[in-house]
């Protein structure tokens, strides 16, 4: 009564104006996202729970029930303390299925649009008194401060402003389940404002009215005791009932459900709220007794202005009264904004769209948006009307308790939804109707008429008759609600759809989705089908959006992916039109095929869900999941290709080895049908699946331009009790083995040729010896110089033949391991000469110039035949790599403890990619059919056996092209060799 009306209106409108500007700043991006999206913003937004009840209603309750007022804060603190087991599962459901309200959640779980409509009606009836409470505090406080006679009119002005704010910042999107950063930031600011205002009031009471905590305690122990003695404390049963009501309100009240679940808080933020929201509420609750006691000390008895508005009696100072007013305005406006948004969505989805299903009208989303805006305004004005007609006759506690008892009627259904898959629609609807009727009959008649409430106490509870109506109604209605739900659910049939939804909702559900084939076989067909319901533009938009959400391409045709696409479209439509309408649309226009194909479990989907929810698994389930992951990992990392097909021919597994072999990523093909796999895999796998035998050996397949030989094994998976039938196929790459087999055959052929050559050489040796002897004899028998010359030439030629034969025999005997028996001091110059000799026999590359620059000394200890083989291979390679006229230089010179032997050619050189694996078997730079790829491997093994090493320079130092093979053979091997071979050489 110290402020003018214009000042109060200016203060209120100014506050809302600043809030509007702040919200605009967030929306335009003037406030950095790291601030507007900070977890603290979300947590403060949850402070929307602290409505005008927290600022004024709690004072009223504290004045009547002492610390009983704490139930309002502790109930919600308990609910958030149970966030991991209570709120997180609801959040998971609401996010997975785009369920933006309690009605959406119930309609989804109990598979009925009527359930959603019923929950919406109950919510609407329950929330109206709470809305009226908010409006009433506005009217009352304006009247209190100004003494003006028409507070309802000024309350209407504030209601209109609040409705405009809600429409401007809360109904921008057609989707309910969207992130409203602006709205959340505004609600967070409101929470902060009311908290600061309450703390200022509490501090004023403690340090100005009292002289600090000690003075307060002294007053409480002295003069204040008589005042406090008049307060009737709540008995434990009523206290616990109040706690239960506020516990339920924490997640059932539309505004709390909206901020906690429909706004996309992260799971982590929600878990942080388990301690931070109770802390916020503690700070909000702390000033309440201080204000109450401060006012009592000043001599206010509550008769004048009512306990609810004691904050205004602390002082006549305008700033303090303004602070108390702003605390209430911030609390009331925040709650009204969010309630109007939440309720408008529920009414739209579960009353309006059920009565008027959306057609193909143009601008469907625009129509939905305007409808929602109208409903927001209607809800807020409905709250004002309720205040005007009903609320003014009642105190805040009465209005608030009617609301909280009404909303608690959804508690049994919610708990059954989460924890009892056996509950069914009939049970839930019966329980809710029975409970709500008891609530309506017990608490509404005294609210809207002068008649008393009708409370029928069951036999045995008659002695409770004198208790407060809210307590009796809560007791009777919730008991009847729970019993009806249980009994009717047990006595009636549960549909298959409900059972599936129950499993999806249940906290400990075993999620076992089934694989049904869809009629539509591509994204395009989805669009065509949905266009019949939503119009072409919206159908295309929805399908594109779902494809983007899932990261799928528009050409997607995998049955698994199409099923996920269908689910996503349903979830997205649910966010816009509610789950009932969304389900109707997809069931009607995107149906499953009903051609008798047995549904099988969607194992891949189950696995992906398990992976996503892994952290939620506990105890035995977690251990089993660990085991599953281990087996899964084993199969995925198996060094052999593996794929598995379900009974319906859908690909369920494609492991890493197979992905590497085929070059096809598992994620892109899992869920596809076998015949849709890229060539040649569809045909190849089809062959093994259709083959009566369980193996296909060495099937030639061209992969990346290379011929590979694959062996496929198949095993049938019998559908046991768990029904997981199908086929598993192992794919082994046997290309190297095939190559090795071919080489072995080739080597055996060469070996037999070698043996033949040795035999032939031996047979030739005898006549050659004879020819040589005869030529010798001829020289003895004649002095004719021409004959002597001829005989000499015959002898030279026979010696040459003998040397050739000896070389052939020697080379044919090569291939033994180096051992002490064959070691001798050899000169690389001689070895090179002999190798060159053999090379020239090949009669190819005769125009390549070989230069043997090897020094005769020093010699190395080695197996002459094996080293000869080394040089033949190296020189042969150099010759093959050289063009006509090129030179091949062979050098051998000591280098420290080594004899360095190098073979340098002027050919094209060796590619880097080949050089690293040149010493591996079957690596060759020669055209197919010309090289075995074994030569360099043999060279490497012989040099290593000799204790040497080998290196490749390509190009050699000082040359532009060519290759230099360098061998290092140990010069001091002699002693070691002798020490190792006592028997042979000693």
């Amino acid at each position, binding site marked *: 009564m110290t402020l003018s009306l214009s000042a109060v209106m200016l203060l209120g409108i100014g506050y809302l104006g600043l809030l509007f500007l702040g919200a605009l700043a967030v929306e335009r991006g003037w406030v950095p996202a790291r601030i507007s999206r900070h977890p603290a913003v979300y947590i403060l937004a949850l402070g929307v729970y602290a409505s005008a009840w927290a600022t004024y209603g709690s004072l009223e309750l504290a004045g009547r029930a*002492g*610390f*009983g007022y*704490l139930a309002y804060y*502790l109930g919600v*603190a*308990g609910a958030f*303390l*149970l966030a*991991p*087991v209570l709120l997180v599962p609801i959040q998971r459901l609401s996010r997975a299925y785009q369920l933006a309200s309690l009605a959406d959640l119930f309609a989804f779980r109990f598979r009925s649009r009527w359930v959603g409509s019923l929950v919406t009606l109950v919510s609407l009836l329950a929330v109206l008194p709470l809305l009226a409470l908010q409006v009433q505090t506005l009217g009352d406080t304006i009247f209190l401060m100004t003494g003006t006679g028409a507070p309802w009119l000024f309350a209407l002005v504030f209601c209109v402003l609040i409705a405009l704010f809600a429409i401007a910042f809360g109904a921008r999107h057609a989707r309910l389940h969207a992130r409203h950063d602006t709205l959340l930031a505004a609600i967070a600011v409101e929470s902060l404002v009311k908290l600061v205002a309450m703390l200022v009031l509490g501090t004023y009471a403690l340090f100005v009215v009292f002289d600090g*905590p000690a003075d*307060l*305690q002294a007053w*409480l*122990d002295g003069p204040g*005791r008589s005042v*406090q*003695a008049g*307060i009737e*404390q*709540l*008995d*434990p049963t009523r*206290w*616990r009932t109040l*706690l239960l009501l506020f516990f339920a309100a924490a997640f059932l009240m539309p505004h709390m459900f909206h901020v906690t679940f429909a706004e996309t808080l992260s799971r982590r933020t929600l*878990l*942080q709220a*388990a*301690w931070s929201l*109770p*802390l916020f509420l*503690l700070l909000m*609750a*702390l000033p309440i*007794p201080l204000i109450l*006691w401060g006012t009592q000390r000043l001599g206010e008895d509550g008769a004048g202005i009512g306990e609810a508005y004691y904050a205004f009696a602390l002082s006549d100072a305008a700033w303090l009264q303004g602070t108390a007013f702003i605390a209430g305005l911030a609390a009331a406006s925040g709650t009204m904004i969010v309630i109007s948004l939440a309720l408008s969505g529920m009414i739209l989805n579960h009353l309006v769209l059920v009565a008027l299903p959306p057609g193909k009208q143009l601008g469907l989303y625009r129509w939905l948006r305007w409808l929602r805006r109208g409903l927001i305004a209607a809800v807020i004005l409905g709250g004002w009307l309720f205040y005007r007609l009903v609320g003014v006759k009642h105190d805040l506690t009465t209005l608030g308790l009617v609301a909280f008892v009404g909303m608690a009627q959804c508690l049994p259904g919610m708990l059954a939804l989460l924890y009892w898959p056996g509950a069914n629609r009939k049970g839930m609807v019966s329980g809710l109707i029975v409970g709500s009727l008891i609530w309506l009959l017990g608490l509404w008649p005294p609210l809207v008429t002068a008649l008393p409430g009708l409370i029928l106490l069951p036999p045995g509870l008659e002695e409770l008759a004198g208790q407060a109506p809210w307590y009796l109604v809560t007791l009777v209605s919730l008991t009847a609600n729970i019993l009806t739900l249980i009994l009717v659910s047990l006595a009636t049939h549960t549909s298959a759809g409900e059972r599936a939804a129950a499993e999806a909702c249940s906290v400990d559900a075993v999620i076992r989705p089934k694989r049904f084939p869809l009629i539509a076989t591509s994204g395009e067909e989805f669009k065509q089908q949905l266009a019949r319901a939503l119009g072409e533009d919206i159908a295309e938009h929805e399908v594109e959006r779902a494809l983007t959400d899932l990261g799928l391409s528009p050409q997607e045709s995998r049955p698994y992916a199409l099923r996920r696409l269908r689910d996503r479209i349903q979830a997205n439509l649910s966010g816009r039109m509610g789950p009932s309408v969304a389900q109707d649309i997809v069931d009607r226009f995107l149906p499953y095929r009903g051609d008798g194909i047995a549904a099988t479990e969607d194992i891949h989907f189950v696995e992906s869900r398990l992976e996503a929810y892994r*952290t939620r698994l*506990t*105890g035995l389930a*977690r251990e089993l999941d660990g085991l599953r992951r281990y087996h899964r990992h084993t199969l995925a990392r198996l060094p052999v290709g593996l794929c598995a097909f379900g009974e319906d021919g859908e690909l369920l597994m494609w492991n890493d080895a197979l992905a590497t072999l085929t070059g096809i990523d598992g994620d892109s093909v899992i869920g596809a049908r076998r015949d849709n796999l890229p060539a040649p895999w569809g045909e190849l796998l089809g062959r093994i699946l259709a083959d009566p035998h369980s193996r296909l050996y060495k099937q030639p397949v061209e992969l990346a331009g290379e011929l590979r030989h694959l062996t496929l094994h198949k095993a049938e998976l019998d559908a046991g009790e768990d029904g997981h039938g199908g086929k598993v196929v192992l794919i082994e790459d046997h290309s190297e083995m095939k190559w090795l087999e071919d080489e072995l055959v080739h080597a055996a052929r060469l070996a037999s040729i070698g043996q033949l050559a040795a035999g032939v050489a031996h047979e030739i040796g005898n006549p050659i010896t004879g020819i040589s002897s005869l030529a010798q004899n001829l020289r003895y028998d004649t002095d004719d110089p021409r004959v002597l010359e001829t005989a000499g030439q015959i002898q030279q030629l026979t010696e040459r033949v003998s040397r050739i034969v000896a070389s052939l025999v020697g080379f044919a005997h090569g291939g033994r391991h180096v051992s002490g028996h064959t070691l001798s001091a050899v000169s690389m110059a001689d070895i090179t000469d002999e190798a060159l000799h053999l090379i020239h026999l090949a009669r190819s590359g005769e125009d390549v110039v070989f230069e043997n620059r090897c020094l005769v000394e020093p010699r190395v200890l080695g197996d002459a035949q094996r080293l000869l083989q080394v040089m033949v291979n190296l020189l042969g390679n150099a010759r093959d790599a050289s063009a006509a006229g090129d030179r091949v230089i062979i050098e051998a010179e000591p280098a420290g403890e080594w004899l360095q032997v190098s073979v340098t050619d002027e050919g094209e050189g060796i590619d880097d990619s080949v050089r690293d694996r040149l010493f591996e078997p079957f690596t060759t730079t020669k055209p197919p059919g010309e090289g075995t790829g074994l030569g360099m491997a043999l060279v490497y093994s012989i040099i290593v056996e000799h204790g040497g090493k080998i290196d490749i320079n390509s190009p050699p130092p000082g040359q532009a092209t060519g290759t230099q093979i360098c061998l290092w053979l140990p010069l001091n091997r002699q002693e070691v060799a002798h020490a190792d071979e006592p028997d042979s050489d000693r």
Partner: protein
Amino acid sequence: MYVYRIMLLLVFGGYLLSPLLMSGWASPGVAWYRPFVIWGVLIALTLWLEQKRRLDER
């Protein structure tokens, strides 16, 4: 999991024992701020459990 069990136990136990909070309203010799201290301890306990849970699920 063990953390969740502790939380369940804490909330249910708190629900049953909570009437004790109110007994100090007018009792002489009982500090007026006692319920808030108990509440503050509960919040600290929840914060500790929340951090323990995060470690448990890491």
